């Protein structure tokens, strides 16, 4: 069933967006995500995709147009990278609080200054508090699949939240890989049409986002929190159903590789997991007991699954391809959340951060070997020499 194509992450996104029969697409150019809009605009022009293609006059406008369209009942798609993502920042909370399941592709790009097209996750991670579902794809196949899965999760009547469909700029967005493209009937079975609950409708007017008094705030925030919590079982259902229909069975939240008898593990998000697996295979051949733990959803963060998975290691190295200058413990964003996840665990691994891939540099096999060496020392000695290492600057 279906065909196989060699597609970049952007090509895979566009193909999935077409098969999801999106209604409104808003575009504004910024590298590296911009290629997806080139492909989608051609599809619309050729009549392959019946959608409103709007040239917004900026990323803020892209999101605002999607907000309105989604509130009226359209399935919407937009995207950006780097400072484009931060330019639209004001819109993220209104869209998630308004329960509009907009999907936004974020092909990561380092934030300015200066101009750097390489991939860092800070652009997307900086928006993690805005109430959007968020996760990374590692390969063009995963990008294709996530596009469909995220619409399914976000549009579920129990959830109705927007989604950041993230993948590393260039490493995933521009390097092609094999993508199995399903039949349209399979997509239609997995992804039903979007049914909004309170659409903007002239026949039945409603007011979205009214002014409130502070005493109404707690309940509204709690309801938003519950919507995000409701996403967790929906994610499991969606991944399960995806496996049944398309034959690719993903683990919903936390993917493990060679962790069975591992003393320590690399904790990672995104494309560098690809290199990490090669490094682990090499290290295992040398008798080093190391494994990989890859997180698939940053929001909702799988606290319990992580607590369960990470507790068994003596040491965990969190690989950070992001920056949050002045963050607790001096590493990156993920370490703070990993530490919080383990706070209530009976058994906690020793944790160190490894700042890697910053600026869009690849994380090399040698750098992974370095991380393994440090974690090995931590696991054996039971002591953390340094909580944070910056790869490439250490001896």
């Amino acid at each position: 069933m279906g065909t196989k194509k060699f597609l970049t992450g952007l090509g895979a996104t566009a193909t999935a967006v077409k098969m999801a029969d999106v209604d409104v697409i808003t575009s504004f150019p910024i590298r590296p995500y911009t290629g997806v809009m080139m492909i989608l605009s051609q599809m619309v022009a050729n009549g392959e995709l019946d959608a409103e293609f709007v040239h917004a006059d900026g990323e803020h406008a892209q999101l605002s147009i999607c907000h309105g369209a989604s509130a009226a009942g359209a399935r919407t798609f937009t995207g950006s990278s780097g400072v484009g993502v931060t330019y639209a920042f004001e819109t993220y909370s209104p869209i998630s609080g308004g329960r509009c399941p907009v999907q936004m592709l974020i092909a990561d790009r380092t934030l300015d200054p200066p101009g750097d097209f390489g991939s860092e996750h800070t652009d997307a991670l900086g928006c993690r508090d805005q109430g959007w579902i968020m996760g990374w794809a590692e390969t063009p196949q995963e990008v294709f699949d996530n596009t469909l899965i995220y619409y399914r999760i976000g549009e579920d009547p129990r959830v109705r939240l927007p989604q950041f469909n993230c993948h590393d700029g260039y490493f995933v967005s521009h390097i092609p890989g094999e993508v199995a493209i399903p039949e349209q009937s399979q997509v239609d079975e997995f992804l039903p049409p979007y049914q909004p609950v309170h659409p903007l409708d002239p026949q039945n007017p409603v007011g979205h986002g009214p002014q409130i008094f502070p005493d109404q705030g707690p309940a509204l925030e709690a309801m938003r929190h519950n919507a995000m919590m409701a996403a967790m079982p929906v994610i499991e259902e969606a991944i399960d159903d995806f496996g049944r229909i398309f034959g690719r069975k993903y683990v919903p939240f936390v993917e493990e590789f060679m962790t069975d008898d591992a003393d320590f593990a690399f904790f990672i998000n995104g494309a560098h997991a690809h290199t990490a697996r090669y490094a682990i295979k090499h290290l295992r051949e040398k008798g080093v007991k190391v494994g990989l733990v890859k997180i698939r959803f940053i929001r909702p963060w799988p606290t319990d699954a992580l607590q369960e998975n990470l507790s068994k290691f003596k040491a965990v190295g969190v690989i950070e391809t992001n920056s949050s200058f002045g963050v607790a413990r001096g590493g990156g964003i993920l370490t703070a959340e990993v530490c919080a996840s383990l706070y209530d665990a009976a058994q906690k691994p020793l944790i160190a951060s490894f700042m890697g891939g910053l600026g869009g540099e690849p994380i090399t096999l040698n750098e992974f070997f370095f991380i393994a060496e440090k974690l090995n020392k931590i696991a054996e000695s039971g002591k953390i020499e340094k909580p944070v290492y910056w790869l490439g600057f250490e001896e």
Partner: protein
Amino acid sequence: MKSYKVEIPEEKLLPEAGIVKAPPPNGEQEGMITGCWRVLRPVIDREKCTMCRSCWIFCPDQAIQIAEEKMSIKLKYCKGCGICANICPVGAIERVPELDFEDGVVRLEKLF
């Protein structure tokens, strides 16, 4: 999987996302009466007024209506911003201190 859902007491529940049925056009909102914010009241000179409706279009609060073929200001909601006076092409609107009126909002003991 533990549920991190929060229990919200029934009496505190609100419509989801604060979404409510829209009031009819020119409907009133008793919870947000803003006329008491006013310090300068717009007064329309009927002789000069040409019924051009500029004040009606520009009022940011829809506090100007057309009642019985005259431009009429809803004093319950007019905040006294003065945009109408500023925009009137014939200068038919004057901004008069609330203190000058018997029923001036600054004189009220109980604000609406």
